């Protein structure tokens, strides 16, 4: 009979059986890693390990060289650093540097914001900013220091001028790049809400361009920091106490090489501190949380 040969759905579906042990008593599918593996998985541990290796190489080479004037050993440098820290000099010098730095940074970022907002308003404005950034982005800020000294004299105003210049262009460049890469759909959505003018800029454009804005903040922070230390190396004579750069220059003149290293070390430490205390959390709470960067 042909009827008996007709297949039913249950003939066509074949389920597989697994002889897995009872899930309530079985070992879990995920097993813990061994302890040393767990520790090695921590970023900070791996990085500290690398730093320790580098310090060791430094120490061994310095001992072999045996010339403290040219290359003080790692331990001597650390000692000099803590001595300068204890005497309060390093902190005072850092404070002077950071004060000027923050003034210049805030000034530069504000100027960049004003320029960028002007630039997104009109095509001519964006052409202007585009031309200006391509002109000045390649011109190092420190090259303007002689001119600044001529205009503003020895002292903080000259440094501020150079600092604002150093911050302005990378910041404006990144902000503008951020604005121009916003998805057209998002812009239409903002318009659809009936937003216009500054409300549109602050509620839609700036958050939408935030990944690039954060990059701009970081890049221009590094620019500002480098420019300031370089400018302080050139002069600090008249500005009384002077900053970190001047500290380094002074100690070099006194042939205190370990102190020079301690000064450089401080520059690095403050840089890393800012990266971890300011920019990392800022990124984690904004662009990473929003899934705009991963």
């Amino acid at each position, binding site marked *: 009979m042909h009827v008996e040969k007709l297949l039913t759905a249950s003939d066509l579906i074949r389920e597989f059986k697994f002889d897995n042990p009872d899930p309530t008593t079985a070992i879990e599918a995920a097993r813990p890693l061994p302890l040393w593996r767990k520790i090695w998985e921590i970023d900070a541990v791996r990085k500290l390990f690398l730093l320790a290796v580098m310090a060791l190489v430094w120490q061994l080479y310095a001992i072999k060289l045996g010339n403290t004037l040219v290359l003080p050993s790692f331990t001597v440098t650390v000692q000099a650093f803590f001595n300068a820290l204890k005497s309060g000099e390093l902190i005072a010098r850092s404070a002077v540097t950071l004060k000027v730095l923050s003034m210049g940074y805030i000034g530069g970022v504000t100027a960049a914001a004003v320029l960028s907002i002007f630039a997104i308003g009109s095509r001519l404005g964006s052409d202007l900013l585009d031309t200006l950034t391509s002109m000045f982005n390649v011109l190092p800020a420190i090259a303007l220091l002689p001119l600044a000294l001529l205009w503003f004299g020895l002292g903080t105003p000259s440094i501020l001028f150079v600092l604002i210049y150093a911050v302005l262009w990378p910041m404006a460049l990144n902000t503008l790049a951020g604005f121009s890469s916003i998805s057209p*759909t998002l812009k239409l*959505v903002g*318009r*659809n809400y*009936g937003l216009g003018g500054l409300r549109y800029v602050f509620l839609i454009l700036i958050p939408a361009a935030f990944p690039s804005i954060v990059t701009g903040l970081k890049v221009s922070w590094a620019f500002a920091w480098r420019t300031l230390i370089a400018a302080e190396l050139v002069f600090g004579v008249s500005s009384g106490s002077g900053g970190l750069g001047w500290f380094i220059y002074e100690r070099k003149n006194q042939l205190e090489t370990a102190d020079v290293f301690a000064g450089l070390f401080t520059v690095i430490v403050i840089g890393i501190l800012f990266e971890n205390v300011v920019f990392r959390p800022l990124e984690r709470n904004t662009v990473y949380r*929003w899934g705009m960067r991963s």
Partner: protein
Amino acid sequence: MSIASIDSAAEENKAILSVEDVTLEYRTRRHLVTAILHASFNLFAGDRLVLLGPSGCGKSSLLKAVAGHLRPTSGRIMLNGKPIRSAGPDRVMVFQEFDQLLPWKTVLGNVAFALTASGNMKRKEAELAATHYLHKVGLNGFLHAYPHTLSGGMKQRVAIARCLSMRPEIILMDEPFAALDALTRQKMQDQLLELWRDIGFSLLFVTHSISEALLLGNRILLVSPHPGQIRAEVTVDPNVLGREGDSGFREIAERIHNTLFRDIADYSI
């Protein structure tokens, strides 16, 4: 004045949206392209009007013009008797793209922000309304999730909840389900019809899919390309149509296809 003109005037008064002899042009670096040529139609309260045509026929441009993002070269578009001059929250658009949600706001924040930004609603009130509409699209479990953690279908549901909550005169949809997988698309189409029966809104829907147009619309305008012109209007009668796959459905779909592609032999959807 003849009786006929009085009649048509009365009918025009009932229309929420009237597009009158609209021509749309846009400029590329080398050409002035005509996207839509002399288009006229009315949309009445509660309509689900579909603009159906192949890609590049200008139907999306027409939708953008109604939204106020594009200005007609000639003709005019009237919303409740007033000409449309700019984009506004009385015509809310739902896009095909998943990035139409603000990535820096949660699901709830996205909908509530639309209400506070577009109207004068206070935050508390806006969040209450937002929760209500998100519940309607079945997203009450995801109020505090950020858009990038959602699937494509869920993102589109947020966009739909957002536009419903703004209570616009017309909802404008530009192929909102085109980027979804087939199963999700079907679910979303059903849900949209359900919401329409539940809330009752006026919809202008753009699609290039004949079956989607027949499924969602009560009237369909067929737009042919180069330049975009409205070739025919189809009134969708569910009794004649039947379900997808029925002979009535297939026959109408084929006739729509022939009307759209009469002049373009080698064009396929």
